[in-house]
């Protein structure tokens, strides 16, 4: 044990004596969270929606058809009660529910006006905004083209309600994304670079010649980054909670456990990268181009995955960050438990195992 602690201590020396490392470790989280505040996005396609038709008459049917044939929306399910709306959102598949008030056509004929309620899942603020605007536009054009054209001076009033994130705060978007990015950066990139540095300097050979076994060497190198990553995650959560008023509706212990799992995943990815690279530069390039950019662009952090070309959507399914973002959003904003996000959790756990197995395999090949 003494040997092992000496090793960990040495690793902390490396970190604390390099101002660049320190800057990345502690400057990044704060600056990132401030930088990624303003995120823009543009179009949507194939958004899954639910419809709760209390009226079920020919007008509501026509409007429904208009919406589903627009190419922007797919009718995922028909709902039959107010209670089902909340449930449908919690499943996480649909982004919007359209509610037609009862006696829609009758009211329209009698009073000249009827109401439609548009409820959007605003845990993803941008998408929610865009989705509800598109819906409004379709309804308005229906009124204009179908009703006014026939000389019927009717009016349909869409009422938009944002669920989970009433004020459409961008912070709800970028906190989970920033967490994923920072943890990737610190855990995967820093670990791979620090192991690659030992190889480059030749100190790895000396360690491998010593009675220390490879596994404790790797664990000793990884532990400091794990500790620091975890501190970073806590700092990000605290910043978003106290400064940006981001809610933590779910269980915080559960959130931290999921975070730890993601950190494990990133660390094993970092180890895998380091087995494939013999210098710090190579490790850095692989981390940068294979991890950082895809994490930012393909995980749904900045651009909604629905809007991507199909091929990029497929690519995004292998982005660990994608699942972590879903997990964090669900826990923090919706207050979901493991029942909702077990699939994402399982995927990240699977990736961790995969990366570890690959690293061990790579390591053995090198010894042969």
């Amino acid at each position: 044990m003494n040997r092992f602690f000496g090793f960990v201590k040495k690793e902390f020396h490396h970190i604390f004596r390099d101002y660049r490392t320190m800057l990345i470790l502690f400057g990044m989280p704060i600056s990132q969270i401030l930088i990624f505040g303003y995120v823009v996005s543009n179009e949507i396609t194939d958004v899954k929606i639910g419809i709760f038709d209390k009226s079920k008459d020919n007008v509501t049917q026509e409007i429904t058809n208009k919406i589903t044939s627009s190419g922007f929306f797919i009718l995922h399910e028909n709902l039959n009660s107010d209670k089902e709306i909340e449930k449908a959102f919690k499943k996480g598949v649909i982004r919007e529910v359209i509610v037609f008030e009862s006696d829609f056509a009758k009211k329209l004929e009698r009073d000249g006006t009827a109401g439609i309620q548009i409820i959007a899942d605003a845990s993803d603020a941008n998408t929610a905004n865009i989705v509800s605007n598109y819906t409004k536009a379709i309804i308005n054009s229906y009124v204009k083209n179908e009703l006014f054209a026939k000389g019927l001076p009717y009016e349909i009033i869409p009422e938009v309600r944002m669920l989970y994130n009433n004020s459409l705060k961008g912070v709800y978007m970028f906190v989970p994304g920033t967490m994923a990015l920072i943890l990737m950066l610190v855990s995967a990139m820093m670990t791979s670079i620090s192991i690659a540095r030992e190889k480059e300097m030749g100190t790895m050979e000396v360690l491998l010649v010593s009675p220390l076994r490879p596994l404790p060497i790797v664990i000793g190198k990884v532990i400091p980054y794990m500790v620091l990553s975890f501190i970073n995650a806590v700092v990000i959560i605290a910043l978003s909670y106290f400064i940006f008023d981001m809610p933590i509706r779910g269980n915080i212990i559960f959130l931290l456990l999921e975070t730890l799992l993601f950190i494990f995943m990133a660390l094993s990815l970092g180890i895998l990268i380091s087995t494939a690279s013999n210098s710090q530069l190579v490790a850095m390039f692989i981390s940068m181009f294979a991890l950082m950019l895809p994490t930012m662009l393909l995980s749904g952090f900045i651009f909604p995955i629905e809007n991507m070309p199909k091929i990029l959507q497929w690519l995004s399914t292998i982005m660990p960050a994608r699942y972590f973002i879903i997990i964090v959003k669900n826990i923090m904003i919706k207050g979901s438990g493991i029942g909702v996000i077990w699939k994402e959790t399982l995927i990240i756990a699977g990736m961790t195992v995969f990366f570890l197995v690959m690293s061990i395999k790579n390591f053995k090949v090198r010894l042969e």
Partner: protein
Amino acid sequence: MENHENIIEVRNLVKKFGSFIANDNLTFNVKRGEIFGFLGANGAGKTTAIKILSGLSFPTSGEVKVAGFDVYKEREKVKKNIGYMSQKFSLYEDLTVRENIRFYGGIYGLSNKYIKEKTESLLERLKMNDIQNSLISSLPLGWKQKIAFSVAIFHNPKIVFLDEPTGGVDPVTRRDFWEMIYETSDSGITVFVTTHYMDEAEYCDRVSIMDQGRIEGLDTPEELKKQFEAKNMDEVFIKIARKQ
């Protein structure tokens, strides 16, 4: 050479990387306490062989015993008995002299008390008391080389492997370094050293010369010179290389 106990025994060692044969059927012994020179041009297979002997790499076939233990089956026992210094003078640049010694002593499981006492005497001997708290990155190459060597034998191994320990340093520093090697050898540690400086070959008790994966000559420098009818080791080496 009155001691004939073998500390390294290599029988028919073969190491292949795909179809490339890096070590072609090597057989040799190293005797306890001697300075064994392992010579050859770049790419002759020296580093591959030293990696196998020090447990960094596995042989494709053949039998290799170091300090009486099989490198394949008893790696951990081998590791406790050897020291290793790479051609990069592997020290941590961002740790101080004292921290490096402390760290390397620590990974061999030596007690704190022992490390402390030995560090004091080592710093005294190297005359490095004044710079013990300087970072390695601030030191000249020759000093790093001495520290790296001292660290490699800090845990009193039976054998120390030196992989081109004199690369990149000036002739005076090289001379100083060989003084350290002699002292080490006198204290009973077997020294296994690779080099491509032929003048250094003269300092060794016995020398093996590798070419294209094979050992082409193995004896004392004097015998080798006689055998190849050469004035110095340089000539021996060239004759071996030209034979192909």
